[in-house]
Structure formats: C-alpha cells, structure tokens
C-alpha cells in the first residue's frame, strides 16, 4: 500500500507579482528516494523550503509526515532532517563536536561515532570542519541532518558546484540513506544524479511539474520510438520505429541477402537527458 510521507496539492507560491511555484501536485511514499529535477530558478528550492517549514505557501495543501509544515512543532522537527542548499559549519568545531552539538538538540539521536562512519568521515572525526574539503563538508552536512535519526530527509542540491570526485563521495553518502530505510526528497539540476539516486523523479519547469515517473519511464521514454541509423548502399539512413526487434531483423536480413554492410549501425532510445531537455525547454507543460 502506498503510504505518503509527503503529499502536495495545488501548491502555489508567489513573491510580489512573481509566481515561483504554480500549482504543484506531488506524492512521495514512505521509504522512497524522490528527486525533484529542474533547471535553476524553476521553483525547486522554494518548494522544498515550504516542505521544510522555512517558507509560507501562497496556496494549496501540504502535508509532510501528516502535518502542515507551517505549524511545525518540535515533535515534527524531531522526525525530519534538512540539508540546505548552501550552509557552512562552525569552522572552529571538529566533525565530532559539530555532530555532538546537534545530537543534543534531539531526544533520540543516533550515536555520533556511528554517523561519522555512515558518512565516511571516520578518519576525520577530530578535524576542524574548516579544514575539510567541499565534498567532506557536504557529507558532514548529511551527517548533521541524520544525527537526529529522522524518518525523512530533505537534500537541496547536495552536489551543486562539486568536482566529480566530491560528487561521487556525496552520492555514496546519499545512497547509504536508502539502506537505512529513510525517505529522501532530493532536489537537483543534474540528470545523472536523479537517475543514479532516485526511485522516482519529477521534473519541474517554470514552477510546474511537467513530468513524473521512474527514471526509466519518465516522459513516456519507454514507449517512445527507437531510432535506428546506419550507412548502407544508398547513403545515411535513419529510421524511427516502435518495434525495433522486427525492424532490425528485416534490415539485417536484407543486408545479408543483398550482401552489403550496415556501417555505423546504431540503435538509440531517448535518454533521460533528451527527455529532460525537451521538457524543460518548453518552459511549461504541454498544452
């Protein structure tokens, strides 16, 4: 049975006359890793900060762990963990001390040593946070959000601006959350990040959700035609087909019978990136 950790109906948010979020509907199930994918300025951070209780919505219904984040109580805050888009740590405290400080805010924290290991900072526990690399600081951010042993974690663009190695480190820490059975709501503008980490993805553009689904079937990617291209005796050919097996069979049969080679033969299906770019370039949902 689908048990929602987050449910959003007709969420709107405007700043002055500018509508940042225009009627978003979403459901995130308990235990799901959900990615909210979209270009900069699409309304990702506004949405996630409404869910976190930092911002007030202009309209719509929001329930996070069954409660309205605007009326957030201490008990509710015990159950969520937040990684902000940009946030530094006290540079004069060590990794361990930063986690100890935050552990004190919660009634049932996870053991500090365990969290240090969980985010892969075992060798850095007594290092001051000011001396950590960007990737290490981000993993500590995840650790700070985990220390209260929350059911639900929000991660707002956890790897923006990272080099590939730091991204990989952060991804490992996030992938570990799934094993802990946490519900994760992640925003990102990287397709590969969504594809790699998420069970389900929603794409937001100009304040509206334009597609949602699993990384495999997003934007009806699985039912879109396959493109077959090759160079034959008549030059370059590109075919679009809904039945690639049959088409390929005919094609290779003909090539064998007539004795020509299919040079540069390629069979391509639309990538998540193709879908993403197509959807976000329209700047809104299809009419």
């Amino acid at each position: 049975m689908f048990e929602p950790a987050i449910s959003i109906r007709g969420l709107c948010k405007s700043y002055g006359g500018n509508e940042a979020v225009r009627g978003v509907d979403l459901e995130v199930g308990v235990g799901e890793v959900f990615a909210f994918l979209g270009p900069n300025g699409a309304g990702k951070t506004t949405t996630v900060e409404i869910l976190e209780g930092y911002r007030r919505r202009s309209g719509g219904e929001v329930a996070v762990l069954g409660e309205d984040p605007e009326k957030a109580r201490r008990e509710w805050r015990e159950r969520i963990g937040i990684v902000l888009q940009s946030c530094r740590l006290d540079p004069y405290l060590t990794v361990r001390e930063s986690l100890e400080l935050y552990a004190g805010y919660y009634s049932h924290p996870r053991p500090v040593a365990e969290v240090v290991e969980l985010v892969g900072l075992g060798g850095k526990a007594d290092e001051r946070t000011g001396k950590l690399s960007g990737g290490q600081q981000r993993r500590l951010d995840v650790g700070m959000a985990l220390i209260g042993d929350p059911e639900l974690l929000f991660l707002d663009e956890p790897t923006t601006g990272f080099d590939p190695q730091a991204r990989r480190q952060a991804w490992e820490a996030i992938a570990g959350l799934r094993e802990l059975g946490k519900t994760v709501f992640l925003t990102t503008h990287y397709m590969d990040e969504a594809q790699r980490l998420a069970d389900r993805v929603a794409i937001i553009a100009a304040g509206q959700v334009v597609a949602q689904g699993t990384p495999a079937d997003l934007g009806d990617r699985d039912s879109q035609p396959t493109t077959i291209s090759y160079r034959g005796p008549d030059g370059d050919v590109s075919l679009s087909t809904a039945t690639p097996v049959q088409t390929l069979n005919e094609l290779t049969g003909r090539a064998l019978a007539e004795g020509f080679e299919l040079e540069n033969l390629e069979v391509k299906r639309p990538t998540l990136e193709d879908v993403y770019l197509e959807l976000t370039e329209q700047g809104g949902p299809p009419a």
Partner: protein
Amino acid sequence: MTLVWHQFRYDQKAFWRNPASVFFTVMFPVVLLLIFATVFGDQTVDVRGGIETTTYYVPAIITLSIISATMQSLAMSLVIAREDGRLKRGRGTPMPPWVFISGRIGNSIVVALLMLALLALIGDVLYGVAIPWDRLPAILLTLVVGAAAFCCLGIALTAAIPSQDAAAPIVNALLLPLYFLSGVFIPDDQLPSGVIHFADLFPIRHFFEAFFEAYVPAGGGGGAAVSWDNLAIVALWGVAGLLLAVRFFRWTPRGD
C-alpha cells in the same frame, strides 16, 4: 536548561578557538589598558577631587571590554553565523530558538566576567589599583545589567548589518567614536561639557558612569556603589534593543 548549558559549552569552545574573537575581545582591552597606563601613568585625572590616571583607566577599559564581549562580539558572530546559513540550519532542528540565543548571551556574560577578573587583576598587580572587594556585589550587579543590555543591543544591531564584510566596519563605526566621547579613552575632565551631554544620549556613557561609580570608591570609601539612575537608563536601552531584536532579528541569510 540542560540544552542551554549544552549550547553554551560548544559556544565556549568555538569562541576560544577563534583567533579573531580571542584577539579583539580578550587581548585588545588588555593591550589598551597597558598602553593607556604606560603613556599617562604618572598623571592625575580631575575626577572625584583628583585620582590617578590608572585608577581611571582600569574601570574605563573594563567597561569597554564588557561592551566588546557582549554587543560587539555577538553582533559580529551572529551576522557571520546568519550569512553562513548556520542560524537557518539550527532553526531546522527541534532546538527552540531561545535556547540558542540564551547560550550565546551566556557565553558573552561569562567572557565579560572573565575580562573583569583579568583587567582588575592587572590593575591591582601592575598599577596598584586595589580591587574593591567590598563593592563586589555592586560591581557584579552593574556588570550583569550592562552585559544583558548590550547583548540585546548587539542582537538588535545584526538586523542593520547586511553582510559579513559589513559587520566589523558598522560595529566599530558605532562604538569607537562613542568610547572617545563617553570618556572611556579620554578622561572626563578633558572633554568639553557639550561632548558629555551628547554622549549622554547613548548607553555607553551611562554604563561607564555606573561602572565607574561601582568600581572607584568616592572620596575614600562610602557613597552609593550602585548608580541606580545610570543603570536604569542602560536597562531601558537594553529593553529597547530586546524589542527591536524580537521584531527584526533574522535567522536566514540576506537575499534568502
């Protein structure tokens, strides 16, 4: 309360490891006292029928160090934490906001008490300005009221500071001229009365008078050690700061 103590402990760690806070809050007042005492040490100040310059500067620099440990240190560290996003992160936890603020105020008051002890000791040992043990209750009362008031003013001031870079210039532009005008750097008897009247419009002068009154025995002992009227004005400033802080304090970085 346990949580306030918890917060306070980590604030203390971070404070003592931060070279900027240790220098400006702890070392700077000590250096100022040594300089003033060395340069003007053999003169007298025409206050209370004539006292040694050092007798004047010990309570003056303690006044400065209390304001520095509270208003200055809080305003700067809170703006830095706010712009770093650290205050926002803290708001996302179950910790009640008052716990965080109380921890910081506690940190400031403890540092202020330490500065009192340190500067009083230096005054006694190096310059023979006896520590007025018999006036300790009045001194501590004055310190706590003043420290609390200047904490509130420091927290209120953060609302007027847009960025980390602006913190030090804004705080110093406010405090440094007032130290001069209020007689903290230049003894009272050398300041024109117009300057003193002007300085009376601000809390530093009143706090200095209250602290001086508590620390320096009037004409060979006796006299009211607590300057109630000055202390009341300082407390009123503190209440005004508190109201402004409650209304305008922000937990999120500017432009958020």
